[in-house]
Structure formats: structure tokens, C-alpha cells
């Protein structure tokens, strides 16, 4: 068995899921007309908010990651793990957490009120950007932190002993190499944002392309327009991807961020301020989510447990799928494969779901495959992240042990079993944790396919919200948060225990 052929199959599957579903939607469409002025306004808004959100996320992540890279303090490992939490939180839960801090009745406004100041108003462009930074700052920080830790400590010592400027000599080239990739990923995540933009956007000015797609599919049943808009989204993705790939490629977002390079440069107080500010910004809203949910735990309906089990099942299947796809893609680096690894980020979940529906409906009852399709789409959405985590680790294992393995005739499955999988334990654990948590929290396409009585936990949470039961919904949100974080922790931890370096 060659290890390159499965990579091609995986790339083909991802292309089929992203572009193929789009084609299916277009094929089913009755073409009524092109894009209207409102659609173009949505495209402009989407681009602007995604650019600003990505720039701010990456820009703020630089000092935070640098501070984390050079300061050791108790609780650092826990903080780094918790920093991943906003990213895996269901959007509505996270937004409610943000509002508990930055809303009109939030902590900040309360504090202002004690000084007789009016509450802050975050609804509008600022609110959208704030939420996107909340979601993506941790991701950017992790990617950059990885870059910092990839610089061998000897180089810092060398620079120090020479009295050379560490920043210009070592850090800036690393940031230049890492930041564009981080920017690209976050830009793409913000590009397909829907609920955040709408809830915090303050009105129709904050219409994103994804909302326009939603409207086209749900209300107008104008599949042609939906396909066109999805194509525009892919076009924007391709454009930004081309630019970012030209500038540099990221090193990945790997696990194993425990190491701290002891350094004497920088102002400790300033670093502490950056870490403290980032921790407050990210953790206080999470605290609010926990606080709001605790009371609701007693109100949870019995059906929530079955839904939780179902969600766990979906998350595990999605994780296995995502890891398989990402691994075979990582084993076969190349332009086509990296494109396949990015495209899912730009795909509109609604178009993917609708396309799959169109494709599957002639053969199988949608309700029967609801959970399977949900797992598949969740896996697809996790692949870009997993590839980015695994590819550098594969490259490193090959660089270090490739010749030894060649000399011993380790090929195909044997090479995977004896060399790669053991060497990839940590990044595999981290990537699997991320994939599982993302799948757990994603409402996904289940709403399109749902049959009788097959609610997942996020869907159950939305149903509670939709029937006035906001306390129980907050409880379900907390349960979801706990399960997501728990899954992430288990996988991430599992990858580290007993992994020989």
C-alpha cells in the first residue's frame, strides 16, 4: 500500500464535499437572476469585518504569545488549555457569555454605572469584531506560541551572548512566517460567520454572505442565488489563500506548549499585563457561562442525556474520520492537498448540507442518515485544523527517521504503524481533541436532515431556548461546554501520556 494514494482520495472527498455540494445545489437551482445590490453590500461587509477581525486577532496575539513563550508561572498549562475554550464553544453560548461582560447589563456597564457613566453599546461593527476576536484570539495565540517555541533555545542564548536584538533577529522572521497563515485561517472562519454577525451586528448593515445564503435557501428557496453567493465565498477564500500562501506558510498549531525558554529580555510587568488582560478578556465571559448554567442544570429535561450520548457518538465518529482524512493529507504534501485542506473553511455549512441533501435524497431517507451526515460534515470542518497540526510533525518525523525507516524497508502500513503514528501521538491527540470538541459544539447540518427524535445536544439546547426555557438552555450550554472541554482534555492528555520523546 502506498501512502500517497489515500491522500488523493481524501483530497477528492473534501473537494466533493465543498465544491461538489455547491455544484449539486447549483444543478438543482432554477436560475432567476444574479446578485442584487443587497448581496454586494453583504459581500463588502463580510470582507471588511473578516479582515479587521483577523488582523486584530493576530495583532493582539503577538504580544500575548510572546509573553506566554518567555514567562513561566504557576497555572500556565491550565491557562493555555483554557485559552482554547472560546474556540470550541457554541456560538450562542459564547455570545451570551460575552454579553454578561460587555452587554448593556454586563459587568463593564455596571462598573461604569457606579461612576454615573452610561452603559457601553457594543451592538454594531464593534460587537461583531469583539466577538470574533474573542473566538479567534486564542487560536492565533496558539499558532504563534507554537512558532515561538519552535525557535531553538540555543539561538536565544546565542543572540543574548552576542548582545544582538532578539526581536529583529529571531522573533520577527518567525512572526513573518507564521502570522500570514494564522491570518488566513481566522479570516476564513470569520468569512462564513453568521449568528455572531447577526446577533451583535445591530441590524441589516451587518448582513454577511452566510446570512444572505441562509435567506436564499430558507425563505426564498432561490438555490441559484445561494450557489452564486457560496461561489463568491470560495472566490474570496481562494484570493486570500493565494496571497497568504505567497507570503508564508504557518508552522502549524501543534500541541506540547509546556516548554518555556528562560529569557532575560522584555519587561516582566508588561508581559504579565498582556497575559492578564488576555486571560481576563477570555475567561471572564466563560465564567459567566458557567455561572449562568449551574442554576439551569437542575431544570434539564431527561431527553438531554440521550442527546448528549448521541452528540458524543457523533463527535467520536467525526474525530475518527477527521483524523484519518487529515493524516493521509498530511502524509502527502502538495499544492492540491493544501487547497483541499483549506477549502472546507470557506464552505458554507448550509450549502454543504443542502448539497448533500440533494445528492443523498434520491437514495436514502434523510432522517436515517442525519447523524452520519452530521459526523461527516463536522469531520470535514475539522480537517483544515488537523492538517495544520499534523503536517509539520510528519515532516519532522520523516526528516529525523526517514532514512532509518528507508534502510529498514518500512513502507506503507508498516511505516505508519512503526514510525509515524508513535511519533505523532502528541499532535494526533491535540488534533483529535480539537476535532471532537468542534464537532460536539456544532449545531451543524443536523437541522437540515433531522428525522424523528434524533436531537444532538446543541440542537436540544436550541430547542430549549426556543421554548422559553432559557435557564435549562443555559444549563444545557454548560453541559455542552463541559463535555466539549472534557473531550478535548481527554484526547490531548491521551496523546501525552506515555509518549516517549
Amino acid at each position, binding site marked *: 500500500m502506498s501512502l500517497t494514494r489515500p491522500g488523493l482520495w481524501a483530497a477528492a472527498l473534501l473537494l466533493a464535499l465543498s465544491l461538489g455540494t455547491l455544484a449539486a445545489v447549483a444543478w*438543482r437551482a432554477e436560475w432567476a437572476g444574479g446578485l442584487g445590490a*443587497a448581496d454586494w453590500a453583504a459581500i463588502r461587509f463580510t470582507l471588511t469585518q473578516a479582515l479587521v477581525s483577523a488582523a486584530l486577532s493576530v495583532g493582539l496575539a503577538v504580544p500575548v504569545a510572546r509573553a506566554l513563550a518567555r514567562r513561566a508561572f504557576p497555572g500556565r498549562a491550565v491557562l493555555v488549555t483554557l485559552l482554547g475554550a472560546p474556540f470550541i464553544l457554541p456560538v*450562542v453560548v459564547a*455570545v*451570551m457569555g460575552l*454579553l*454578561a461582560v460587555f*452587554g*448593556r447589563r454586563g459587568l463593564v456597564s455596571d462598573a461604569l454605572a457606579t461612576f454615573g457613566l452610561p452603559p457601553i453599546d457594543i*451592538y454594531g461593527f464593534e460587537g461583531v469584531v469583539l466577538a470574533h476576536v474573542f473566538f479567534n484570539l486564542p487560536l492565533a495565540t496558539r499558532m504563534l506560541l507554537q512558532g515561538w517555541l519552535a525557535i531553538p533555545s540555543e539561538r536565544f542564548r546565542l543572540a543574548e551572548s552576542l548582545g544582538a536584538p532578539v526581536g529583529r533577529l529571531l522573533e520577527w522572521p518567525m512572526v513573518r512566517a507564521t502570522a500570514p497563515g494564522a491570518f488566513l485561517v481566522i479570516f476564513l472562519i470569520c468569512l462564513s460567520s453568521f*449568528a455572531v454577525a*447577526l*446577533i*451583535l*451586528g*445591530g*441590524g*441589516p*448593515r451587518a448582513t454577511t454572505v452566510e*446570512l444572505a445564503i*441562509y*435567506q436564499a*435557501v*430558507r*425563505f426564498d*428557496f432561490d438555490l441559484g442565488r445561494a450557489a452564486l453567493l457560496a461561489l463568491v465565498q470560495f472566490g474570496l477564500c481562494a484570493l486570500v489563500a493565494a496571497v497568504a500562501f505567497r507570503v508564508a506558510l504557518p508552522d502549524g498549531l501543534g500541541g506540547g506548549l509546556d516548554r518555556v525558554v528562560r529569557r532575560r529580555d522584555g519587561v516582566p510587568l508588561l508581559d504579565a499585563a498582556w497575559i492578564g488582560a488576555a486571560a481576563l478578556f477570555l475567561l471572564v465571559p466563560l465564567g459567566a457561562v458557567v455561572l449562568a448554567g449551574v442554576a439551569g442544570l437542575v431544570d434539564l*429535561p*431527561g*431527553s438531554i442525556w440521550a442527546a448528549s450520548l448521541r452528540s458524543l*457518538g457523533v463527535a*467520536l*465518529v467525526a474525530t475518527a474520520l477527521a483524523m484519518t482524512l487529515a493524516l493521509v493529507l498530511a502524509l502527502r504534501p502538495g499544492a492540491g492537498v493544501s487547497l483541499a485542506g483549506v477549502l472546507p473553511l470557506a464552505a458554507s455549512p448550509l450549502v454543504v448540507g*443542502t448539497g448533500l*441533501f*440533494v445528492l443523498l*435524497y434520491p437514495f436514502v*431517507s434523510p432522517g*436515517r*442518515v442525519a*447523524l*452520519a451526515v452530521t459526523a461527516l460534515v463536522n469531520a470535514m470542518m475539522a480537517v483544515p485544523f488537523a492538517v495544520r497540526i499534523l503536517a509539520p510533525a510528519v515532516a519532522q518525523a520523516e526528516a529525523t527517521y526517514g532514512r532509518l525507516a528507508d534502510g529498514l524497508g518500512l513502507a506503507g502500513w508498516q511505516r505508519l504503524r512503526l514510525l509515524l503514528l508513535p511519533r505523532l501521538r502528541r499532535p494526533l491527540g491535540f488534533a483529535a481533541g480539537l476535532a471532537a470538541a468542534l464537532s460536539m459544539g456544532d449545531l451543524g447540518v443536523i*437541522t*437540515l436532515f*433531522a*428525522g*424523528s*427524535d*434524533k*436531537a444532538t445536544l446543541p*440542537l*436540544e439546547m*436550541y*430547542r*430549549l*431556548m*426556543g*421554548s*422559553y426555557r*432559557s435557564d435549562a*438552555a443555559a444549563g444545557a450550554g454548560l453541559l455542552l461546554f463541559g463535555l466539549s472541554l472534557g473531550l478535548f482534555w481527554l484526547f490531548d492528555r491521551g496523546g501525552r501520556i506515555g509518549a516517549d520523546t
Partner: protein
Amino acid sequence: MRTTATIAGLMLATTASAETLTIYTYDSFVPEWGPGPAVAAAFEAQCGCEIEFVAAGDGAALLSRLRLEGARTEADIVLGLDSNLVAQARETGLFAPHGVEADFDLPVAWDDDTFLPFDWGYFAFVSSADTEAPANFRELAESDLSIAIQDPRSSTPGLGLVLWVEQAYGEEAGEVWQGLADNVLTVTPGWSEAYGLFLEGEADAVLSYTTSPAYHAIAEEDDSKVAWAFDEGHYLQIEVVAMVEGTDQPELAQDFMAFVATDGFQSVIPTTNWMYPAVTPAEGLPEGFGELVQPETALLYPPQEAAEVREDAIATWRDALAQ
């Protein structure tokens, strides 16, 4: 292997048996706290069949799923389309006349041989009782009150609100929306998010239903929520059920349509769906519904007109709020 089998079992639902009536409906109808279980139990007791609910998002998502499936749909009954969606639903040609005669307790005349009302409600702004209530949209526009509303492009209440202003103000709708622009805190994708913002205290009021305070009063024993009565009248939401023409269970489907108008269905609605039943059951409405705001004027575009007005009304809304 056992885990694989369990997962496979989770993925594949048990196939429907021959005597199964498949009902497509919206999400909040089916959970254990919704109307679904009680309705199903009552009908199953009488028909000796089985009901299978398929939940497909909200009312709009329900319709788009049906359009995707076309004539091959497995649905026998579609329950939960909103009156504003009826024209588009009719266009699909998927539905058959219901043939049910019933004495509806609706504030407007409803005479449709295909789409049968099963419940209804007035759209209204809901606020805390100690908030000073404006008497109409213009007073609201002049006040400092903040409101959370839903997007008419993704939510049926959002669309209801836009049609409400359109019908109440016609040519002046744009001007009213411009006045309201600074009151609109934000626009959410669906009812749930807006209501959540209101409960969190982010907005002074939220677009919901006159029946919403009944939930808080009955289920939570909390009398602090009220609906504002507007003197220009309140727009109605009528939710309808229809029979699919190509059903493989025509008799069961017909029986179910007749069952909808009976007490077995109608008495479940008020305290599970928190709407008015289309036919008031013999025991009357539950306590708590009596104290609700009773609008003097009921507004509603007939389905065909709603479909025609919709696009312009949304454009008016968007232009006014996008400034």
C-alpha cells in the same frame, strides 16, 4: 465491534412500519416539553397507528425541506407553516384539500380548503411590567426604549413584524422604521436569540407574542412580564397544518386533519406551544390566558397578498435600518 454496532444503531433509525403517519413539523413542536408527545399519544390512542415526527428547523426551514424533497417526500402531514408562508407552500402543489369543517375561534375569517389553522397568536412586544409601555409604534420610536427584533429574512416573527408595520402604516412604513432605528438594539437570526437577549436584560422589550407572559405566569409563576397593546392593531400569526397529496396513508392523514380541530389536539396547545388554540376546547383556556392583552384590531395579509408585499416590505425595513 460492539461500539461500532451501537454507533451504527444510533445512526440508523428504526424503519417506519406500515401504519405510521409521518408528520413534518418545526423543532419546538417535538421535544418532551412541547405539544408533540401529548398530541401523538392522543391520536395514537384513537387510530391504533404510530406517529413519527420529523423536526425540520423552523417554519421556513420546514417549507424549504419540503421543496427540496418534492413529490417524493415521506411526509404525510406538514404541521407548522405560518400564514405568511402559505402562498409559497400552495405554489408547490404538494398539498391536498383537507375537507374538515370546523368552527374556528380566530380573530379573522380563515377559509382555506387546504391549509387548516391549528393555533394562532398576536405578535407583540414583551417587556417587564415596570417598563412604561408605549401605545403604538410611533410612541415607541419617540421613547428611549430598546427592542430586540428578529431578521425578517431568517425568522417568521421577524417577517411578521415587518408585515405588521407595513399593514399598519402602508406608505409611511419606511418613516416609522427610520424612527425605530435607534430603538432597535439588534436584530437576531431567530426568536430564541432575541428572547434570550431580553431575558438577560440587554433589551427593554422583545418582539414575541401576546401569549408570552402566560408562559412566565403559568410555568414560572412570574407575573412580571407583560405584552404591550398597540392601538394600531396587532399582526397575527396563524399556524397551519396540511395534508400531503402524495401520502401513502390518505385515510390516516385525513383522520389526523379532523383530529387537529378536536379537543384532543387543541387542549394541548396553550400550555405547550404557548399559543391560542384555533378551536377553543370545551374546558376553555387555562387560567393565565384570561389576563392577556386583547388587541382591538387584528391585522393580517391574506396569504397571496403577504407573498406579494413581502419583498418590498423587507426592502423598506432594510433601507431604513441600514442607514
